[in-house]
């Protein structure tokens, strides 16, 4: 068996194909086929429907959104979107810009931090690497939002309270532990021979990481990026506590609370705003989705 990375990668992509070939030897009966597709269609509907329903609602006026009879199109219009985007209820575009900036910074920094750490843990048996991994596991066990007060104090001490960068760092601490696990798992599937060939060809340990391992770990990095992005994109508690209260410095998730005040939720407006928020996340998802299986498969969840 050849075990170079090319073969591994190919095997990863063809493992499914291989199973397919074997399974299709016994042709599925018509009934089983109907059952299979039936089950998957049902599951897909359940998965998609809530989002679809928000989309439908987003075109309805608030009053129609709370009607007791469901309807797909009833006085549908783009009014909700116009209202949200026009900034009557808060500077939506500023929120959007803040969220994009914070999510992108979190993604870049989170991927960078977890990639370097994941690589070190995957390749070097340095004293302390096990406790580092255990520490990451324990870090996920404490509800950190409860630590907003001490966190607030630290950020003030560092002069980062109320700044974008401070919030990005906080998001990184929540995203990095899982991402490190995942990337470590992914790096483990890249044969060490590749690193060594690179060393012999004249690369330093950092050169190996940067020019060989990172390009080969793209699926794993894609999943990590996706995860970091989502961590920052929809978060409310830290964002409302650690950013300044001025309207133009809010993130989307915080700003949108304006549409669901205590007793009166503006369903139509909230739906439109939600769709606007979901679009970037879904776009990112679409870009990385083909990597998700292979990235996660060989990634951290293998333990």
């Amino acid at each position: 068996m050849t075990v170079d990375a090319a073969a591994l990668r190919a095997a990863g992509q063809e493992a499914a194909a291989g199973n397919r070939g074997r399974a299709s030897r016994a042709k599925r009966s018509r009934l089983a086929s109907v059952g299979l597709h039936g089950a998957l269609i049902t599951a897909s509907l359940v998965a998609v429907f809530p989002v679809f329903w928000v989309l439908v609602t987003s075109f309805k006026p608030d009053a129609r959104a709370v009607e007791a009879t469901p309807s797909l199109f009833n006085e549908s219009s783009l009014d909700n979107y116009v209202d949200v985007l026009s900034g009557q209820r808060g500077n939506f575009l500023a929120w959007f810009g803040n969220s994009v900036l914070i999510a992108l910074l979190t993604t870049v920094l989170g991927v960078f931090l977890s990639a370097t750490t994941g690589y070190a843990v995957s390749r070097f048996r340095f004293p302390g690497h096990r406790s580092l991994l255990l520490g990451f596991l324990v870090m996920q066990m404490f509800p950190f939002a409860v630590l907003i007060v001490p966190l607030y104090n630290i950020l003030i001490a560092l002069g980062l309270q109320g700044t974008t960068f401070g919030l990005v760092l906080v998001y990184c601490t929540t995203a990095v532990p899982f991402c490190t696990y995942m990337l470590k798992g992914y790096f483990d599937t890249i044969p060490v021979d590749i690193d060594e060939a690179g060393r012999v060809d004249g690369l330093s340990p950092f050169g190996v990481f940067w020019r060989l391992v990172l390009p080969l770990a793209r699926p794993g990095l894609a999943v990590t990026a996706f995860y970091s992005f989502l961590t920052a994109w929809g978060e409310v508690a830290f964002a409302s506590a650690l950013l300044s209260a001025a309207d133009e410095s809010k993130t989307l998730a915080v700003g949108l609370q304006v549409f669901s005040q205590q007793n009166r939720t503006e369903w139509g407006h909230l739906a439109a705003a939600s769709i606007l928020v979901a679009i970037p996340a879904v776009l990112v998802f679409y870009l990385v989705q083909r990597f998700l299986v292979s990235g996660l498969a060989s990634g951290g969840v293998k333990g």
Partner: protein
Amino acid sequence: MAEVAYVNASRVFPGSPPVRAVDQLELNVADGEFLVLVGPSGSGKSTALRMLAGLEDVDEGAIEIGGKDVTNVPPKGRDIAMVFQSYALYPHMTVAENMGFALKLRGVPKQQIKDKVAEAAKMLDLTKYLDRKPKALSGGQRQRVAMGRAIVREPSVFLMDEPLSNLDAKLRVETRANIAALQKRLDTTTIYVTHDQVEAMTMGHRVAVLKDGLLQQCDTPRELYERPANAFVAGFMGSPAMNLKTVPLTAEGAQLDGLVVPLPRTVLDSVAAEGLTEVTFGVRPEALHLAGADEDGMELTVELVEELGADAYVYGSVRIGDASERFIVRVDSRTPPAFGQKVKVAVRDNSEIHLFHPESGKRLSA
């Protein structure tokens, strides 16, 4: 071009107890020489190679390349190229990029890289594949790319770690010859690791046999075959393996069933001086023959006949003392004995026997 020297070099893996993977290796390789490191798995041969590459620490002693101590030099400063068992081709680069990567890292001008890659590709018959990714190549082609990547560098030493073990049998024989020819042409010092003693015998100018991290013997293939330094080397080199049996001694020689093999006086004297009553007696299958009915010989009960076309090997049991021992005899393939038959076996020429100390395994005969 450079000579290579292991100066009492050891690699000790931490643990309890620590494992001495390579134990005080003392080995000199001349400029332009093709040296094969051979041994069973776990013998430390790959570790020794990786120490030379700088991929493994040297815990004791030193390593020299071209007369310079490189013990603490990282791989990139050693001017070596390595072919890995898995080839370790960079999956995200084309064949040309794989081959030119090391040159690119050294800042060699693009055109020059291109020329060198083209030249090496021509030598290895890879010109057609330069734009492909390794994934799209067959096993043999990948192996050649790995070779090409090493050649393009024009290093002072080639290191090869079982480069043929992932090829099928036919391709392996072919590539074996190609590598040997290539080495001759480039005249670059080469250290080659294998577990296959046929590769070792056919390729190496000299062969170093390792076992448990210890160098057993380093010599030309012929010397190794004809005068193995100990019972391990005798048993390891040659296929099928040498018959090695512990046999009792008499005043004249070694006592086999129905056959006394006379031993030189000097050997008998030295054995007697040590007070030994037994020796390890070794004879290769081709040094045995089927004896006529009137000759002296061991009685062997045939258990298996392996016909290989030109030759046939007879596996059978012989009683030595109370025990039944298995012997292998090479016979003419046209007239092999039948299963279950009892035949007489004798030593073809008494100078072709090997004697080893029954405990230390050291060679006894002069």
